[in-house]
């Protein structure tokens, strides 16, 4: 993402606002925790010290402990990995699949484009979580299914943008000129269309990561994601929900981290958008 910013020469170089910097720092810490969670906590997220179950936040357990006596902070930190993998993985998958479908649809004959764009429109009418649920209904619950379901549910949105952009570029003078000069359409696609798509789609994807993380956590909360005792955020919330009357910390901290992650990615996304992405 930072690469993207430096590569864009178009915009005046104003320093980013504090909120954006904060978001970037937060995401940096998350990435670090995703790669090396042991740097942030000395505790084992699976270690169940049942005698310490449901103890409130303290120096030893900054986020308290859960119903099995596991350290909630360690579980949140180790859970980052799952959320990031699903968030970025699903978004990347959706981005690639959506771009391919959108470009194909934009370049194809009227009939093919008509059918494809119709299907995309119809799928767009469904909320992502319902689409993801349908995908899970077919491929069954689990960690890999979760990623696939979230990705597939997001494909139509990318496909639609990719298609519209492709149409615009296809009709632009330089592409028609190139075609008239006998340049192979595939070359045009590679040289003109895809680069033109990437900017807006990447900005969209930055914001999409947040949505994907929330969708995944929601599905996992419904029991359609990883197995317990995986420290996945949605699962932590789902496992702890019967203990909220006595232990509010089980819900509050994982949820706050989740919300902060989404805010950070969308803040960054909006910033990129404002700097001339879309």
């Amino acid at each position, binding site marked *: 993402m930072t690469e993207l910013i430096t590569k864009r020469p178009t915009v005046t170089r104003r320093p980013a606002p504090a909120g954006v910097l904060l978001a970037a720092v937060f995401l940096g810490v998350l990435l670090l925790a995703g790669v090396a969670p042991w740097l942030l906590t000395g505790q084992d997220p699976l270690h169940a010290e049942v005698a310490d179950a449901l103890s409130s936040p303290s120096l030893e357990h900054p986020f308290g402990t859960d119903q*099995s006596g596991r350290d909630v902070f360690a579980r949140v930190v180790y859970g980052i990995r799952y959320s990031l993998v699903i968030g970025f993985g699903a978004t990347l998958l959706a981005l690639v699949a959506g771009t391919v479908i959108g470009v194909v649809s934009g370049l194809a004959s009227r009939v093919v484009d008509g059918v494809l764009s119709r299907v995309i429109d119809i799928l767009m009418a469904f909320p992502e979580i319902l689409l993801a649920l349908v995908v899970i209904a077919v491929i069954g619950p689990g960690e890999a299914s979760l990623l696939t379901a979230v990705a597939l549910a997001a494909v139509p949105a990318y496909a639609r943008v990719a298609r519209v952009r492709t149409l615009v570029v296809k009709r632009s003078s330089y592409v028609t000129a190139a075609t008239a000069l006998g340049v192979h359409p595939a070359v045009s696609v590679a040289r003109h269309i895809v680069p033109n798509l990437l900017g807006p789609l990447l900005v969209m994807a930055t914001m999409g990561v947040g949505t994907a993380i929330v969708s995944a956590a929601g599905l996992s909360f419904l029991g359609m994601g990883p197995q317990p005792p995986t420290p996945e955020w949605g699962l932590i919330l789902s496992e702890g929900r019967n203990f909220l009357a006595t232990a509010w910390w089980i819900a509050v901290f994982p949820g706050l981290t989740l919300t902060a992650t989404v805010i950070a990615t969308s803040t960054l996304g909006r910033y990129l958008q404002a700097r001339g992405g879309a």
Partner: protein
Amino acid sequence: MIGGTIAVLAVTGMLAGCAQPAATQDTTITFGIAGANLSAGHMDIHSTQLDVGSLVLRNTFDSLVAQDLDGQFVPWLAKSWEISDDGLRYTFELRDDVTFHDGEPFNAEAVKANFDHVVDPQTASAQAASLIGYAEEGGYYVDTEVVDEFTVAVNFSQPYAPFLQGVSLPQLGFYSPKVLEEHADELKAGGPGITVGTGPFVLSEYTPDQELVFTANPDYNWPAEGSEHQGVAASDELVIRILPEDSSRVGALTSGDVDVAADFTPSMADQVGDGFTTTAVELPGIPYSLYLNEADGVFGDQKVREAFRIGFDIEAAIDSIYFGQFDRAWSVLGPTTPNSYDASLEGSWPYDQDKANELLDDAGWTERDSDGYRVKDGQRLSARWIAWTPVADDKASLADVIQSDLKEIGFEIVRDVLEPAQYNESYGPRDFDLTDWGFSSPDADVLRSHLHSGGFQTASEVTKPQVDSWLDEAVATSDAEVRQGLYENLQQWNNEQVLIVPLFVPSEITVAGDSVTGLVYDLYGRPAFYGASTTVGG
């Protein structure tokens, strides 16, 4: 255990005398249960294998005999019965004044129609058929015979001791023969006009996953012998609310939305505070246990099984998770199982990680991989634990602890929580290393399905001739002492072989508001609402 087992029962029972049985107008008693799976085709007592069916439908279906709290059988719909000397024929003399909710008479024909329905393959009975002793091959049950209008006989090919036990349960209760004829395919869904029995309450409304409304049967006058309450049910209406979330049941009870709530855990009971009576009945039968598949995988080695059993601190876990209210189990039968429990096993396998480590070293699991797990011949010491959804919070915590403790001795547990259909796919071909459940039953014969070669709940397909012969002998004899001896052999055998690892003896916990009187509980700790009412406004 909460306040001793059976002693608690009497307390609520005796209070019945204080309340005026002649109910004031329109009295309703409400009962909250978890019951989430009831709607999944489990409203039919003849086919369901789930306890929730019995819990809900006991109010609508009567049995031939009742089992009192001492384990003795007393007359109910049968005035008396006789067992032939060879143990092959049970003859029941029926009451002649009993009618079904739809007005059909209860008689020998009705009993036959029901037992025929239970063993009919179309019924696909998952429990009632085995309670009656029926099996397609190697069963005990032969047929039911109408002797005269109010005399019925049941014939067996071999003596089958648990039969009276079976006919005392709601699963072998009686539908109106008219319903069996006209609505046989709707029984699993159930509902008014379909779930029709002879019991004190008539099902009048049913909203799946939400509630069941029962109205008092105005003609009812045939409670089991020894019932304090007589005549029509004490409350005019019984409403059973389905509240699958633990917190909703606690909330509904404390806010007064329901008068009685079942399926409580000790931690929930802990939350309700004053003004409520908690009843805990320690369940007979098989404690909540882990079932090890010794046919292949790591549990093929007895040393590994032994190390597994003592490798986690079960006592501390149970104490903490159940607030000291459940006892850890030592034997594969619960202490309250009649004529069978072997108390000598208590204390015989305490938690001992050092010994567990030694056993695993001896078994050749000496190397460790980068995650700290033991390795032998390039294979990790790892066992796959399958469970079906939903896993209760307490069981999940217990599993967390077991997994965490065993990791300390380098033993990996991989937990696979599966949907029932997927679970069956793994369970059927015995494709797992361990699985878990508790199986309450007031008869030690429950061990037959769990240890007998080819038994439905036997975790492996390994044949065990000695065990089979003990089990077969025990089911055929009605001599209490002989049975006790045989079941002690079986418990000791399991203790040496470590095939079933009992974890704790669960109690059925039910909490009632103090305004509720006349509630009585059966051997399973299930409340019966026949004599129960609330004293609203005095």
